[in-house]
């Protein structure tokens, strides 16, 4: 690296474990998950909350304060968390179980598979720090959680973009009969989708903007990035469409096929997840099975690697999911 350039850039610190993904000055909502759950629970006495020593860090503490008799602290024991959630569901209650995505999926996988999914139990697993939303390194970065969870039959997977997505998803995943895994953004969560005549519908992908040159299919906060990039590229006369797929499984294959067929020269799947086993591979498989061949197809996900520790802006830039880096990747793919 050119030292003169390196010296110009300030060296950022990793900061808090949960650094906000909101840009400076961006509109945010605080604790959308916790607030939505508290509101819903007022009319749903069957909803209970559980956590593995991470209520405060998943916004579930709001539920615990509002309904202490319906909140169960399981301690730092994720296998117990998922097993006991299954037990509560077997008794007709609807547990919302929270922890970090790394622990919920990697450590408790067999309990989700055998206790919860095999019996199609009504457990809602809401797990924070999805993908690259912390600079703490692989111990806390759930970059392969979707790949793992997609392998479980009958499990619904939701990867919301922003505060609006989350608050609208909560009542819908509660109403859904069966297990749900939702990737959770907590704290001050960006508010983006209210500008797009958008409503979250479980199982549905939504075209947020149309465009002739590129179609970005995305989930999670990469939809927010895609919308930013679309605005940036418009200045370069590149017309970008964005199809938001907050439900990863079951995938809205019809909407994907419809959006891709005949229309775009480049399809990019953007996700806050490893390129292995995530939305990108799911979309690729969908297109092949439906005999739809876009002129170009690229994956803008995280690399198949153990990611670095560091400050989030640095890491997002390094791994190509910052606004600038994603825009640059798409332009490169267009050339």
């Amino acid at each position, binding site marked *: 690296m050119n030292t003169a350039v390196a010296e110009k850039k300030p060296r950022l610190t990793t900061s808090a474990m949960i650094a906000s993904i909101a840009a400076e000055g961006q509109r945010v909502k605080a604790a959308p998950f916790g607030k939505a759950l508290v509101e819903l629970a007022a009319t749903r006495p069957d909803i209970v909350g559980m956590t593995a020593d991470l209520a405060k860090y998943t916004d579930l503490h709001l539920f615990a304060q509002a309904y202490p008799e319906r909140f169960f602290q399981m301690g730092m024991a994720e*296998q117990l968390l*998922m*097993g006991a959630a299954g037990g509560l569901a077997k008794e007709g*209650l609807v547990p919302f179980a929270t922890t970090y995505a790394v622990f919920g999926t990697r450590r408790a996988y067999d309990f989700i598979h055998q206790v919860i999914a095999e019996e199609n139990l009504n457990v809602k697993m809401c797990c924070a720090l999805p993908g690259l939303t912390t600079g703490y390194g692989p111990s806390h970065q759930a970059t392969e959680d979707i790949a793992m969870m997609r392998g479980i039959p009958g499990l619904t997977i939701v990867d919301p973009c922003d505060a609006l997505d989350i608050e609208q998803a909560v009542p819908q995943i509660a109403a859904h009969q069966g297990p749900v895994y939702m990737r959770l953004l907590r704290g001050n969560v960006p508010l983006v989708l209210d500008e797009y005549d958008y409503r979250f519908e479980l199982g549905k992908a939504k075209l947020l903007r149309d465009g002739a040159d590129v179609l970005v299919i995305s989930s999670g906060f990469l939809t927010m990035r895609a919308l930013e990039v679309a605005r940036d590229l418009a200045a370069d006369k590149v017309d970008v469409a964005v199809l938001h797929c907050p439900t990863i499984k079951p995938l809205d294959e019809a909407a994907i096929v419809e959006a891709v067929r005949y229309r775009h020269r480049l399809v990019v799947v953007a996700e806050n997840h490893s390129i292995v086993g995530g939305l990108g591979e799911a979309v690729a498989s969908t297109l092949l099975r439906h005999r739809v061949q876009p002129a170009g197809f690229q994956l803008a996900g995280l690399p198949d690697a153990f990611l670095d520790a560091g400050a989030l802006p640095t890491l997002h830039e390094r791994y190509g999911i910052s606004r600038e880096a994603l825009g640059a990747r798409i332009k490169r793919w267009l050339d």
Partner: protein
Amino acid sequence: MKELQNLRQSAYRIRRYALRMGEVQGQGYIGQALGYADVLAVAYRHALRLRPSEPQWEGRDRFLLSHGHYAIAFYAALIEAGVIPESELDTYGSDDSRLPMSGMATYTPGMEISGGSLGQGLPIAVGMALGLRRKENPAFVYNSMSDGELDEGSTWEAAMAAAHHGLSNLVCLVDINNQQADGPSGKVLGFEPLADKWAAFGWHVQRVDGNDLAAVLEAFDAARALREARPRVILFDTLMGKGVPFLEQREKNHFIRVDPPEWQEAIRILDESQQTEGVPA
């Protein structure tokens, strides 16, 4: 005394059903079934509140078979309790049967959980006990597990949580036959002093001879009658193959091998011993 005689007959029939299922399949965890039959007889003919014709009755006590490979013993107990018909025994382990080799909730009436991935029963039991308490349902949860499951960390996560939440509606039953896949449980991963461990975790503990019907009966009653706000565990020391001497003496193994002609021989010996005890079959 009359009740003990009845329970002895129940245990005999459970052993006999299990042997007949073993003969159908040519294999099965028969050593465990014979060893655990006395505990299951007391559970299903004395301790549990249940309605045989209504396995999902809301007021039932929940019996969780965490050690799913004990299914052969458990089906025998369900037949004895009248939950599933004796005629179904011939389907054990066959295609499309409701009685698969490893117990699964989605297959069998009266089977509360899909066990078999060991160490999951007690965490589920904690959730069910919390759920029952929340619903103000006075039913009990019995989690039945093997000593091998003491190796699983999740067992102890759940043991801590059950005590922390004061789950007085939870009874854990541990079958200590001291046999795991790779050898004697104590040699695979030593678990003694077991009673002290559970006590240190905050549980009410009893350790009894699991093949002494009177002692088993007393332990079940004591666990239920206890007025303390804490979970209860009963540790049952049992003898693999109990009731069929040539199987009791067979080289101890997690999976006792039984040759084809031996199934009938085992049933004959069991029947004879029952008759010499003077209890009408």
